């Protein structure tokens, strides 16, 4: 009986271990898939051309393989999103943590979380059908596809990320620092800007970097509302194509498996993967730093 239990214990442990192994296999699979196909891509296209050519036209007869226009499109929409999400998200975090009553916070937090639960295709629809026409009333020359509208909507989508992570960071600041500041006669706002934000800075930086990474990888909003024209520009009023949109565009078309056009999605995907991986890990480092500081 006892031996039977012991055997069963062992088998169960093995099964659970295999479940955990799936996560490692997923990572290995992603790296293998992206890089093995990218290697065949880079046998045709030099890394130098990929990183320095200013045109991206793999689907035309005159082929150019410079990723820069896609990178600029991605950075532009991301920048606009952060410009919206950072001030709003951070202010919400400060307000909920330092000003609002407990009851208000309890009601409002789940409502804000809903913003993060809305599927991105819905935001894309909203950007194209509501935000763009609205912006066109203010800026009459704005084309139907542009970087500004999806950038703003993406910013609204990531507000909850910035606000809830910043809130955690502000919450972790010891009460004694607040008390000291109030004891010196400072107002709440002075305390926030001169004591709490500096004390919580690494947590907030971590939140912002994570939000940047989220925006870089966002696909549907930009695929619907930003256009499909690789465009080396930093003008928010122009149509741009992001790395993610390009990958979608290719998979929507009839590109033969194994061709150089097909391989471009792996090279673009590898670029995206590396970019987000670096950002995420910088963010983890900052996060760890503030946790060590106060816990």
């Amino acid at each position, binding site marked *: 009986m006892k031996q039977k*239990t012991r055997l069963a214990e062992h088998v169960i442990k093995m099964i659970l271990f295999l*479940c955990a192994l799936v996560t490692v296999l997923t990572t290995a699979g992603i790296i293998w898939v992206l890089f093995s196909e990218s290697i065949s891509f880079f046998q045709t296209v030099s890394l130098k051309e990929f990183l320095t050519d200013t045109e991206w036209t793999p689907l035309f007869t005159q082929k150019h393989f410079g990723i820069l226009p896609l990178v600029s499109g991605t950075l532009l929409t991301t920048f606009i999103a952060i410009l919206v999400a950072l001030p709003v998200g951070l202010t919400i975090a400060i*307000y909920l943590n330092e000003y609002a009553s407990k009851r208000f916070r309890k009601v409002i937090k789940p409502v804000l979380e*809903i913003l993060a*639960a809305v*599927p991105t*295709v*819905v935001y894309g629809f909203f950007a194209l059908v509501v935000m763009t026409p609205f912006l066109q009333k203010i800026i009459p020359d704005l084309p139907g596809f542009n970087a500004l509208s999806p950038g703003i909507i993406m910013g609204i989508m990531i507000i909850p990320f910035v606000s809830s992570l910043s809130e955690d960071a502000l919450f972790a600041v010891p009460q004694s620092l607040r008390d000291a500041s109030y004891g010196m006669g400072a107002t709440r706002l002075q305390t926030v800007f001169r004591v709490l934000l500096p004390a919580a800075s690494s947590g907030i930086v971590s939140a912002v970097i994570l939000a940047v990474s989220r925006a870089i990888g966002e696909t549907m909003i930009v695929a*619907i509302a930003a256009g499909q024209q690789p465009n080396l520009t930093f003008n928010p009023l122009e149509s741009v194509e992001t790395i993610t949109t390009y*990958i979608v565009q290719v998979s929507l078309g009839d590109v033969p498996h194994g061709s150089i056009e097909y391989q471009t999605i792996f090279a673009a995907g590898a670029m995206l993967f590396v970019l987000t991986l670096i950002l995420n890990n910088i963010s983890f480092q900052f996060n760890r730093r503030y946790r060590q500081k106060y816990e």
Partner: protein
Amino acid sequence: MNRITRSKIIDQLFKYFGILCTSIGLIMLAALLINVFSDGFGRLSIDFFTALPSRFPEKAGILTAWTGTLWIFGLTILIAIPLGVGAAIYLEEYTRKGFLSNVLEINIANLAGIPSIIYGILGLTIFVRTLRLGESVLSGALILSLLIMPIIVVSTREALRAVPKTIKEASLALGASQWQTIWHQVLPAAFPNILTGIILALSRAIGETAPLIMIGALTYVPFVAKSPLDEFTVLPIQIFNWISRPQAGFAINAAAGIIVLLGIVFVLNGIAVVIRQRARNKIKW
């Protein structure tokens, strides 16, 4: 004195700015809902749910889309829950702190941050081509399962960690084995929180579009999927398809589809919140 009054006024002003910022999100949400409802509510009818896709917007419906979403939902539950919960139990209850557990931990944090479209590329290469599962419901469910697995692992581990050590120790002291302790004591105690995490992860999977586009779920599917190996489409992809058409009629269809999709997502999120609240009120550790 003047400076003090001024700081106090600025402090008050910031408070109103805070209220304004907090309401921006809510205003946007309201604007989105109002817009979608005014565009699409009139289009909702029984026919809309029972009609196949069509070239004519007035005739097109979401039958293939909602059945596809149901298929994906069911299969993802079957695949993602055992994998995610199993992995979480292993990491939380069986590994000792050390190099291996560190690697696993960093790996899962990274997986959670990988853009969903990359999972699509993985699925396209591994499931669709290498394993020859084709552009099927099963391929889609496998991709989404891998995508939400890190979310389930993280939330399940938090739930397991919240169970007091004393319960485990009491069970072990009575002679129960480790698995018996987990199965009879830890899992029941952590169940509501685990369920909350799973439901939130599933609601994320329901709304995912990009990874399924990668495996070709956008192609015209004129029939309802009957087996896991059939081709399929899902609600978000049907919506995306309609958004990309130029005719105004399809924008109305898209809005109507969005009402259905948001309905599902909000109901799932609502259930999760209720379960969490109930568990919080009940437990007295």
